[in-house]
């Protein structure tokens, strides 16, 4: 497969898209882990969540 004279542009754009999408995924996964860890930490320290009112918790 030949990409012609502009191969570097094609490869760069595909690489950039891959990099940014991977970055998004890594960020979201890391954020999820961080929030989970914080929740565990808080629940370990004894503050209990009123599970019946979880909708109100968001506000």
């Amino acid at each position, binding site marked *: 497969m030949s990409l012609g004279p502009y191969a570097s*542009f094609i490869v760069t*754009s595909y690489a950039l898209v891959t990099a940014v999408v991977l970055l998004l995924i890594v960020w979201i996964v890391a954020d999820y882990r961080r*929030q989970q860890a914080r*929740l565990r930490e808080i629940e370990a*320290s004894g503050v209990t969540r009123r599970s019946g009112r979880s*909708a109100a918790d968001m506000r």
Partner: protein
Amino acid sequence: MTLTDLANPTRFLALTTRILPWLAGATAILLAIGLYQSVMAPDDYQQGATVKIMFIHVPNAWLSMFVWGVMSIAALGTLVWRHPLADVAAKSAAPIGAAFTFLALVTGSLWGRPMWGTYWEWDARLTSVLILFLMYLGLMALWRAVEDPSRAARAAAVLTLVGAINIPIIKFSVDWWNTLHQPASVFRAGGPTLDKAFLWPLLVMAIAFSLLFITLHLAAMRNEILRRRVRSLQMMQASSSRTFSAEAGSASCEGNGSKEIGIA
């Protein structure tokens, strides 16, 4: 599962956890098919192999507008129906939309480079995307500037809707400004005359990227719900003054207060 069930964040979390792996799998498969087809697609007789950039540029450009649409619906949800998930959806969509817009810009400029000889040309299409990108960044700055999420949500919702109304006006003005200064744009991306050999990979990639957005958005919404839960729990934690009584009052700074450190 009705819409009112989805309004409950706990149910939403449970549902998200159940469907996220499937969505991620479907996205991966479609992306793989799309990428294979793009690689196998023939060269364009005019643009040569650079036409391959189109297969990732166009889906990103399409998503950059689609995400703003999603945020506008969420903004209506915040302002009109006060749906508890609406501002979560709006807030978590903004960085993802900004990332897709950024990719549309960069791939567009890389695609244009062989034709223009420069990375950036004040082409009407690209310039509109650049302004859209600035608006995404402004929206993210707004979310960051206000600490209280529900107060920030209303301001961001108003800005999002104003943006949604203004984007066509901006697009029109930029087109007009552009034709005023230069005859016709050299940059013709896609269009209905596209050959079938290009249409299929493009379509698959567009669906794959849309699925990618939905997957990322759901995951980010889940994060945001957890973040707000952490926030409200921390506020409860701050107001629960544990051993605040005469006993704490007598503990001086140098005194025996240190035995309680482990609890915090």
